[in-house]
């Protein structure tokens, strides 16, 4: 352990801004959108007061924000941008551009639902719609994790084995606008953990190269190379987390954090801040002798298929709580998880719980009902594959 951190009482948005300052990016390019706004405002203030020596580009849209970040990354700059919801979708065209060009841009996405109807609160429809963009995606449970993952994101994304952009997701308002005690790492420790970005993947007058070229018939090999490198990411995440723990004393369980899963008859899988509620309910139900467990899916890309299959092979019923819905089928996380679980010999009964759309609260009572339904499924009770939490469907 190095220098101790400093306890600060800040919001999730501010935690991300502080983490960005600690990571010393060269270029920030962003357009404000609720509920990400506070993050980019704070960073703008840091650049203004000189505490972050960086170029801040006030662009006219999210599409331009990512395009400008791509340009900066193309000359070897460490870059940051942030967005949310409609902004992420407006930016969508540029996401595969960045991942294909292998620029390790780090972006914060404040999870917010999509219009229409217009709404401001949180669900995961925005980022999950971009699973296929070639970006790494992590989902955070609290402000501390968001801060730590921004710092780790640069290390993982910029690793020469990885060279893949990284999206750090945190739930809008629930995390971005609530205040928590956060351990703010010392700058010298972050500098030790995260050295300056050096890469050969850049334009250079002394060593001319071309970026964002056409490939035509070789397109497939370029894309498969991305896939092969993405498969190395779980190992890099493990290495980086171990080193992070050594310096800062915190770790988050890799791709999937398991909580009371070992002997559980029913396990619920969650993403993001709702995990906190599930954790409290698991604690309460365990006190009553009910064998329930929880798995927090942290990374959606690369997808932790082996970890999820491992948990599934050890339980009788598995629930996936989706804060999204792919209209016409089921929850997106469920589709991914079930594809992983169907590999195993005797899969558990799987139920997709869809809730919290547009920011509707998922209460402890809702959570208890979810676990009760899972326990019934574990006892062999049949029922609907897709169930809606606290919603009127008739």
């Amino acid at each position, binding site marked *: 352990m190095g220098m101790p951190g400093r306890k600060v009482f800040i919001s999730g948005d501010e935690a991300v801004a502080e983490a960005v300052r600690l990571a010393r990016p060269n270029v920030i390019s962003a357009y404000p959108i609720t509920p990400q706004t506070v993050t980019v405002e704070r960073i703008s203030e840091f650049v203004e007061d000189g505490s972050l020596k960086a170029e801040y580009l006030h662009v006219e849209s999210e599409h331009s924000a990512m395009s400008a970040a791509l340009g900066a990354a193309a000359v070897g700059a460490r870059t940051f941008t942030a967005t949310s919801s409609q902004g992420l979708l407006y930016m969508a065209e540029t996401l595969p551009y960045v991942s294909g*060009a*292998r*620029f390790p841009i780090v972006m914060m996405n404040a999870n917010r639902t999509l219009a229409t109807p217009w709404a401001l609160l949180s669900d995961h429809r925005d980022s999950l719609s971009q699973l296929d963009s070639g970006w790494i995606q992590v989902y955070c449970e609290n402000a501390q994790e968001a801060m730590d993952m921004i710092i780790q994101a640069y290390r993982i994304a910029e690793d*020469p084995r990885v*060279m893949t952009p990284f999206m750090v997701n945190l739930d809008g308002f629930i995390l971005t606008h609530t205040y928590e005690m956060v351990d703010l790492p010392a700058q010298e420790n972050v500098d030790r953990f995260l050295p300056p970005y050096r*890469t*050969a*993947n*850049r*334009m250079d007058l002394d060593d*001319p*190269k*071309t*970026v964002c*070229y056409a490939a035509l018939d*070789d397109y497939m*090999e*370029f894309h*498969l*190379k991305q896939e*092969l*490198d993405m498969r190395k990411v779980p190992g890099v995440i493990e290495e980086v987390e171990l080193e992070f723990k050594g310096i800062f004393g915190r770790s988050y369980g890799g791709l999937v954090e398991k909580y009371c899963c070992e002997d559980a008859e029913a396990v619920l899988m969650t993403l993001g801040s709702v995990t906190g509620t599930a954790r409290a309910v698991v604690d309460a139900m365990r006190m009553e002798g009910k064998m329930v467990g929880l798995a927090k899916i942290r990374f959606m890309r690369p997808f932790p298929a082996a970890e999820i299959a491992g948990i599934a092979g050890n339980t009788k019923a598995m629930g996936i709580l989706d804060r999204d819905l792919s209209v016409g089928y089921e929850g997106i996380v469920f589709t991914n998880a079930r594809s992983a679980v169907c590999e195993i010999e005797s899969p558990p009964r799987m139920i997709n719980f869809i809730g919290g759309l547009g920011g509707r609260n998922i209460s402890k009572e809702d959570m208890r009902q979810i676990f009760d339904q899972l326990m019934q499924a574990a006892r062999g009770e049949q029922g609907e594959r897709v169930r809606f939490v606290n919603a009127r469907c008739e």
Partner: protein
Amino acid sequence: MERPLVVKFKRPDSIRDYPCGAFRVGTLVQENSGWRVFRPVIDTGKCIKCLRCFLVCPDGVIDKSGEDLEIDYRFCKGCGVCAYECKVGAIVMMREGDDGNAR
């Protein structure tokens, strides 16, 4: 003319040999003169070498390394921007295959 060479693309032996991002320069692998319907022709007598065509050409095919400006027809797509922008009317567009009737 001092112009880049077209180098035949050698497919990497393994997927490992594909670049991760930036590619080395000098990998022009094909000419695209076949796209052209009209070709720009410079009247060197009228040309005042203002280099406006050199600046506006989207494909960078105007060569200024010699005494007169020259066009690298291997890469000219015949868009006509140079002729449109030329202030002294020194560039005319001629239909490919025609015997010189200016368009």
